[in-house]
């Protein structure tokens, strides 16, 4: 196929971006990667189109070339394209480098055996160092951006393959001292340094000449890339900015680094060199450097954190998010070694001011507030991992961080959280007044939120905000009864104003802890039942009551329901009313409820309602309290269904019906047993959970046998040996078959389950029965008589039975033992088998030959001949 036009590519790329996986699964998916690579060299396409092709290969290399071989080929092709570019200005050079790098890494092809890696790495280093090694630089004008790109490619490769540039450390360091673009070089050096340190420390080795060996790594001819350190690193990724726990591990690791005093000096000089030029980096790059060096040096001997001191004052003066965050990382890494108590206080002041500074945007404020509540204190008092205001952050400092009704919901909640944490503090005498005033303020804020939520025309968001605030307060101040009391009262009033918020109330009751749930439940129940059952909010009242009704105050509840019943004119209201009855049933309310249900069963107009009321009445009359609670309790079946009606009934249905379940036991066929007049299967049971009243049901495929009786087992427990079960078979014809098995049992939770088990095979030989043993010494004549009696209408045949290494004698005794009538080893065996219901099979085995034995057979049922043939031929194979 020739190259596509610009429009065709635009269309194709658009279709790909709209749904990459769907596109790749479609007819065009397979060839996309191939076409893309070949069209990059087409002269008909404009550079702009090619840039968009390269953009795609930078973003989706793992879809275009998913495996290592394809990625390797793609990278090779991209590098070839780069080499083939004419030496005039082109916008393709940079994206080609980026795409080749992305393809190698994403496809997992980067490695010492990859040819493309072997080409790309020296090329990048040449470009980065400003050497026009491969002549791909093009015009001088492109030199600088191309150089910057090469540095970035190298940094990405080092990130994905730590240790890759370990051999270049000395060289990079030398370059930093000379001229060169400072930012990419500093970042790469810091990264390679940190990775090198970690790898060497893990190996328990020293730095060697890593920092001092400053020759150009690929200079002087085609020297292969140095993969030593990368291979030592074992391809394990290194976090560039690990968080505290992970870093502590790394810290211990770095302490294992064997460094000579000279190496320590070199290392310190390198770090100082990096920090000295830090100011020349963009703020985000400075932050990256500080994270890298901060955690890179933590735990390293002879590297005093004081090296960072000169940077701190400058950085503390900014409000730049990345920089303050990096300072916090340094604080977490070095603690008191870098920040004295005064420094810590200053940092806290700056952070607190930044968290409310009007010149900064809201997302920044919220992140700073998060940092405040997770501040890495020098001497933390509270439990680690829990949010809390640091010790030095008093109420005075937090004033501007307290919630106000004019704030956006997210800001308000974040500030409310802080307020709750401050209110939760049990201060000393002097601060008691302050905490008291904070609690007053908290109540004012909550009251304001409730007032907003109570507006009939108010948006959903204001109701949601009010309930979130209530939840936050209830979870932070669960131990403060006064706060909870006023919260409960306020919420009850809110319900009174706007019963339409009932779903929010139900959600709140489901979410909060018992400290608020119980008093709120009681308050809301009173609020509902004190009203009349006739106002427009009846549907909300009933929804509310279904949640909050209980044994307490049952008489008023029932009175309310009785009154409400008269107003439940439509189906939905009736169902809601019955839902309340159901909750009462579940909670064991009996007296009075029976009367109500009886009344509903007769008075409700809708047959649905009548039936349901009658059912509840019957349940109430016939089931014990515990069984009722279980039947109506929350369903154990997961996941919950979307329809509330179905979901609510699920528990009930689950408890009273048989449910389909995965097999809770394993069933297998044990060794043959010859007992009684018919063939018997010995079944071994292995329960996976306690099972009661187990009933196993069998069905024979193809009606070859008479129907089988079900087998009952009273109980089974995993780990306790179960007696084998004997299953008598009554074949209608002597033929093998399969038994379909299902089990019905009761679980310890009282549920009845039904499960299908894997089918059990019944083999031909499972049907064999012996003839009654002849008297001693008459075996031979008995067999001849049988043979003769069979002969007139019987079928005679001869089969070659191959013998395995075990020999004829062992085979006969193992497989045919019970059926041998006459045995004259090694020359002759006579075997007589009764095949139920009424067939005979007689075998004469002659002397064993080299690889088998000839068997003469006679049967009065010609239909079994193929089965016998198969059986005999497979005799030596089967174990």
């Amino acid at each position, binding site marked *: 196929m020739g190259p596509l036009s610009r429009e065709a590519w635009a269309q194709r790329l658009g279709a790909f971006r709209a749904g990459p996986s769907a596109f790749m699964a479609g007819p065009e998916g397979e060839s996309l990667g191939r076409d893309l690579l070949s069209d990059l060299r087409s002269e008909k396409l404009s550079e702009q189109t090619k840039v968009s092709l390269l953009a795609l290969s930078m973003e989706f290399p793992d879809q275009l070339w998913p495996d290592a071989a394809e990625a390797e080929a793609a990278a090779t092709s991209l590098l070839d394209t780069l080499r083939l570019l004419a030496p005039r200005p082109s916008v393709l050079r940079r994206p080609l480098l980026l795409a080749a790098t992305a393809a190698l890494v994403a496809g*997992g092809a980067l490695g010492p055996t990859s040819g493309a890696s072997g080409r790309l790495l020296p090329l990048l280093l040449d470009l980065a160092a400003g050497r026009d090694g491969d002549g791909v630089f093009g015009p001088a004008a492109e030199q600088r951006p191309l150089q910057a790109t090469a540095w970035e490619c190298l940094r990405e490769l080092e990130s994905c393959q730590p240790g890759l540039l370990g051999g270049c450390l000395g060289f990079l360091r030398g370059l930093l001292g000379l001229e060169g673009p*400072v930012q990419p070089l500093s970042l790469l050096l810091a990264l390679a340094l940190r990775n090198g340190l970690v790898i060497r420390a893990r190996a328990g080795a020293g730095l060697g000449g890593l920092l001092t060996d400053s020759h150009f790594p690929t200079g002087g001819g085609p020297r292969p890339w140095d993969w030593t350190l990368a291979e030592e690193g074992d391809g394990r990724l290194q976090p560039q900015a690990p968080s505290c726990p992970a870093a502590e591990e790394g810290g211990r690791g770095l302490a294992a680094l064997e460094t000579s005093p000279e190496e320590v000096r070199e290392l310190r000089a390198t770090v100082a060199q990096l920090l000295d030029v830090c100011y020349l980096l963009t703020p985000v790059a400075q932050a990256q450097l500080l994270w890298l060096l901060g955690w890179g040096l933590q735990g390293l001997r002879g590297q005093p954190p004081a090296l960072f001191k000169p940077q701190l004052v*400058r*950085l503390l003066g900014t409000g730049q998010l990345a920089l303050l965050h990096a300072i916090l990382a340094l604080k977490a890494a070095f603690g008191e070694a870098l920040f004295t108590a005064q420094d810590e206080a200053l940092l806290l002041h700056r952070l607190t001011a930044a968290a409310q500074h009007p010149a900064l945007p809201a997302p920044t404020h919220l992140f700073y507030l998060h940092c405040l509540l997770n501040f890495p204190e020098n001497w933390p008092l509270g439990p680690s991992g829990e949010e809390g205001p640091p010790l030095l952050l008093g109420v005075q400092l937090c004033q501007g961080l307290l919630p106000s009704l004019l704030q956006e919901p997210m800001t308000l909640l*974040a500030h409310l959280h802080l307020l709750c944490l401050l209110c939760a503090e049990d201060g000393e005498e002097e601060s008691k007044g302050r905490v008291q005033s904070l609690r007053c303020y908290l109540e004012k804020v909550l009251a304001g939120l409730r007032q907003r939520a109570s507006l009939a025309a108010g948006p959903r968001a204001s109701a949601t905000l009010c309930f979130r605030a209530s939840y936050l307060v209830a979870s932070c101040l669960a131990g403060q009864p006064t706060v909870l009391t006023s919260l409960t009262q306020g919420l009850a009033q809110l319900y009174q104003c706007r019963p339409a918020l009932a779903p929010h109330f139900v959600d709140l009751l489901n979410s909060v802890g018992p400290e608020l749930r119980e008093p709120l439940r009681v308050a809301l129940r009173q609020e509902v039942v004190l009203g009349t059952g006739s106002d427009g909010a009846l549907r909300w009242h009933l929804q509310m009551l279904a949640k909050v009704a209980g044994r307490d105050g049952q008489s008023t509840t029932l009175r309310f329901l009785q009154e409400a019943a008269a107003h439940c004119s439509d189906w939905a209201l009736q169902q809601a009313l019955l839902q309340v009855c159901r909750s009462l049933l579940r909670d064991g309310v009996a007296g009075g409820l029976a009367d109500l249900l009886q009344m509903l069963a007769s008075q409700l107009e809708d047959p649905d309602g009548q039936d349901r009321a009658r059912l509840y009445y019957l349940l109430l009359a016939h089931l014990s309290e515990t069984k009722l609670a279980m039947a109506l309790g929350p369903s154990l079946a997961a996941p919950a269904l979307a329809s509330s009606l179905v979901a609510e009934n699920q528990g009930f249905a689950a408890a009273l019906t048989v449910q389909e379940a995965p097999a809770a036991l394993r069933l297998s066929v044990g060794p043959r047993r010859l007992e009684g007049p018919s063939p018997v299967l010995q079944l071994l049971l292995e329960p996976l959970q306690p099972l009661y009243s187990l009933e196993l049901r069998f069905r024979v495929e193809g009606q070859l046998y008479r129907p089988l009786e079900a087998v009952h087992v009273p109980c089974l427990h995993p780990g306790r040996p179960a007696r084998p079960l004997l299953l008598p078979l009554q074949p209608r014809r002597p033929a093998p078959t399969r038994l379909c098995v299902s089990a019905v049992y009761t679980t310890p939770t009282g549920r009845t389950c039904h499960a299908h088990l894997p089918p059990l095979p019944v083999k031909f030989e499972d049907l064999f029965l012996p003839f009654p043993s002849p008297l001693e010494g008459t075996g031979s004549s008995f067999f001849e008589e049988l043979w003769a009696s069979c002969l007139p209408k019987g079928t005679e045949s001869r089969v070659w039975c191959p013998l395995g290494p075990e020999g004829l004698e062992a085979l006969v005794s193992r497989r045919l033992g019970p059926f041998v009538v006459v045995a004259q080893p090694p020359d002759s065996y006579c075997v007589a088998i009764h095949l139920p219901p009424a067939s005979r099979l007689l075998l004469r085995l002659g002397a064993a030959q080299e690889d088998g034995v000839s068997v003469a057979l006679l049967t009065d049922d010609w239909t079994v001949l193929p089965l016998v043939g198969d059986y005999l031929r497979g005799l030596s194979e089967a174990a």
Partner: protein
Amino acid sequence: MAQRAVWLVSHEPRTPVCGTVRFSRRYPTVEKRAKVFNGASYVPIPEDGPLLKALLFELGLLDNDKDFMESRDSCARINKTSVFGLRIGGDELWPVVAFLKNDMIYASVPLVEQALSPRPSLINISGISQAFELLFGVQDFLCSSQKNDDELNTKLGQLPDLLLQTCPFGTLLDANLQNSLDNINVASMTQPPKQPAWKTGTYKGKPHISISINEKVKSMQYDKQDIADLWQVIGAVTCKCDLEGIMPNVTISLSLPTNGSPLQDILAHPCVTSLDSAVLTSTSIEATDDSAFSGPYKFPFTPPSEAFNLCYYTSQVPVPPILGFYQMQEEEVQLKITVNLKLHESVKNNFEFCEAHIPFYNRGPITHVEYKVSFGQLEVLREKSLLIWTIGQKFPKSMAITLSGIITFGAKNPEKQPFDQICIGGTAYVKLHFKILDYTLTGCYADQHSVQVFGSGKPKITTHRKLTSSDYYIWNSKAPAPIAYGSLLL
């Protein structure tokens, strides 16, 4: 520190999907690392379609029905930062840094270099602040001097190229995208290698430094015994330094007159090389005494090429520039209002404009107004239920002006008249809008003679100052008003 993917999504309310992905960029090499670092808790980056849906849902921007929906409205779903978890299929993609600004959602997923379960604290994830910086950078780029949709589309079209420069592999190199755009344009110039990474090109021409000090004043006035009025000044100092040389050193000093109010909470630009400890510790969050540092505030720096904000500050002036009270009372079907405003004598009585907006929320259109103003004119926007009192350029000699009136409203039409959750019943406010040129409330100024430039010749220095109002509210003293903790007189 790297980002796994970035998106820009425009929020389009009242359309079927409620939004469109305007830009997306994935970083496959970072994704590869995420897979290793996150291990069993790894959740892949979704395609744009599912992401759009999940993002709009999580930010509550879908226009769905008003009924309560647990997965969206449950009280236990509380987000206290702009970092979200998105439900995609059965998994949760976390952390997603996202915020909405001017109907555009900016979103990014930073790499977390460890397992995600249990969730690490955000403070320990370096990629979070980098994600914010990237998104703020994109936002600044899109919003700077952008006026209409065409310009927005042009800028969105430039984004892929810009990110190729500033974030080629997901690790951000410079949050200043405009800088990189300039960089592309001056690529042919050979840039000296030791130049700061945040400075593009070098200037050739006459040296010139321009300094503008813009102060905003905000206020909450209650006219109540037990509630304290609040006001605050927020200052921003913007500079543009056109100087020759690679790294010219400049020092700008901000000075205050003898009775000036000290600057507090100073946030300096990262190009500032050092700060006095007095500058660093001057803060509004702690009670200050009279001995507070009052300048001059020195800022030594190497300027970037473009205009930049040298510093931001806040200040607490002793009195608000305009003190007012507002009384509004409902009398049967009418509202009776009185507004008094008094300009403080120390404030320059020369406004570019000054007006008071008096909105009436949750009511019908204005049908009738009887009023008396001691000064200025009153404009009545009947349908919007709004009065605008234009005071003009100067307060009269007495410095005090009054408005009183009786207003009648028609039947409420929620479609047309504004709804407000706060201004319920008697709760109402007057909002002042004013601007004074060549003036700062703190008195802060940049003295031309105090600007020091090392290196090139003596530059021409121009300075500008202005004061504008921002969130300047005077609440009805006859009804409850929203208050901050700081207003409670304890």
